[in-house]
């Protein structure tokens, strides 16, 4: 049998502290989303976005069509706009078929409080991004 979603999640840094029962609870089929090539997952300036973890495929982070970064399996996005309650400042566009796990924006806070280990991993990633940004400036 193909690797199931819970197993896949266990190999991502974000979920690496969780045991099998918790991973199964997170890996609910209702949270899976699929996007076709060129479809936008987050839209700059549009309200109501969510938080996504890339399960399979690649996505491009763009502003007015120019690429600022790429997202691959295990990467996540949408947390900044969701946690701050603001609209996304960039588009995230599927580059080929894209498979994601979605936590709707209004559910992200409760999700992180339910899984504090996931919140800590997310915080470490954000800290690393901040460090990289500061290194770049100095």
């Amino acid at each position, binding site marked *: 049998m193909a690797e199931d979603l819970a197993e896949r999640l266990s190999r991502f840094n974000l979920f690496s502290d969780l045991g099998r*029962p918790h991973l199964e609870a997170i890996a609910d089929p209702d949270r899976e989303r699929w996007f076709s090539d060129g479809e936008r997952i987050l839209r700059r300036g549009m309200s109501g976005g969510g938080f996504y973890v890339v399960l399979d495929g690649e996505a491009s982070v763009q502003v007015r069509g120019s690429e600022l970064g790429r997202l691959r399996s295990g990467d996540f996005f949408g947390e900044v706009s969701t946690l701050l309650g603001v609209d996304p400042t960039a588009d995230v566009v599927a580059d080929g078929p894209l498979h994601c796990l979605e936590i709707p*924006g209004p559910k992200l806070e409760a999700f992180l409080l339910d899984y504090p280990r996931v919140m800590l991993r997310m915080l470490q990633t954000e800290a690393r991004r901040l460090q990289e940004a500061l290194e770049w400036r100095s």
Partner: protein
Amino acid sequence: MAELAGERPFPPGEYPVVVVGSGPGGLQSSYCLSRLGVEHAVLSRDEEPGGMFRLCPIYERLLSWTKPDAPFEPGTREYEWYDHNSLVAEEPENQASVVPFMNRSYMVPSRREMEQGLASFAEMAGVRVRYGCSWESTHRETDGRLLLKTSDGEYRCRAAVFAIGVTEPWKSPIPGIEAVPHYVEAGRPETYQGKRVFVIGKRNSGFELADGLLPWAKQILLGSPRPVDTSVIALSSVRVRYLQPYEDAGLGGGTFALDVALERIERTARGYRVVGSGTTREGSLDLEVDEVIAATGFGTPLRDLGNQCGVRTVAQGRIPTMTPYWESDSGSGIYFAGNASQGAAGLRKHGVGAASAAVHGFRYNARVMARHLTRTHLGISPPMERVGGDLVEFLLAEATRAPELWTQKSYLARVVREDGESEVLPLADWLDHPTPGSSAVAVEMNAEGEIYPAIYAERDGEVRECLLPPSALNRFEGEEYLREARSVCSRS
């Protein structure tokens, strides 16, 4: 009315379009294609209309309302919002077809009332179907056309609409689940009298079973890894019934909804042994029960569409991936209607999903799909509506009254082009490919449950979003509201 013997319509041959299925998705698609003047064949393996409503829900009560008396008269466009079960038609006499069959013991029709309403629609609106004709396999011809082989012979077409439901029983891969009957195989409620029953799954079909078994079973346990999302159940108009088993534990009734990841199910001399681990609360679970039922969901019966025509699927092959127009994103000319149209998820703003898995959502998808198919594969431009007068006033009137915008929130949008031509389109696709100078309106809902119109405008290559305030009684019109709307939109 059933065709007389020897008069079955649509003999094998060549048609511009073939529709497969005679459930609500197939009937609605055929109706919409006919209205556009598109010649097509409708094939069904069944002997009569109704699709899955001929059998399900197994305990006979639907999820969605039909209110025979409402603020608007049956037959009007506005009334559609109060009738989530009838198919939609342009002729008032073909609207609200479920209403005459409601016995009003409940505002949610029974399975039988729904089946009668669908059959009545097919008869009144003149939807003809070749019954007893089973689609068996599919091939792509070298010229790009589709070839459908059926029990009656071969059909060739430029585009096909598969309205085949999401009806194939699916079981989650738990060791031992093979021995467990699926929801569709569950017995009548009385056959569970005095038994301890474990239901795998805590979504609609799980709660439908639990609700049906409450008066009979000795004890009911529902188990799945993720906690019950009461806000999802609450979106259904039968929430009171479905929440009854959920809240039964708190009332001391002995029913429990368990958050548990199941490790295995074993047959025992008396019944089953269910073994798993708690998710929300840690701990192991080891239960002896008399019966287990898998309410673990369904898949789309795609037959060979994947292997023969390259239709890409996801979720262990259960769902075809599709464009915002419900066309396979890897198989040109292969469209999905009915429940399978949920494969195009749309924006899901604030986590609010479309109603495409229910009649009141997919009946509108079918209308938009038929126009897209006609335009894209037959090269015929469907007629557009013309909008004159004040644009904002028109958009807000649509947000107040259009049933398709109300049931398909943040999913279907009323679009008006710069030249005043107008149609309903999937919001996601219009946002990504707006024509210059066009505007759109959608009805949206936020996390607080507030409902409000969103106006979008394409100007200079960018789409701006303008969220308007909610309104008492959901009336987004009148001078005061219009003034506020103009002020909000000029700022955004």
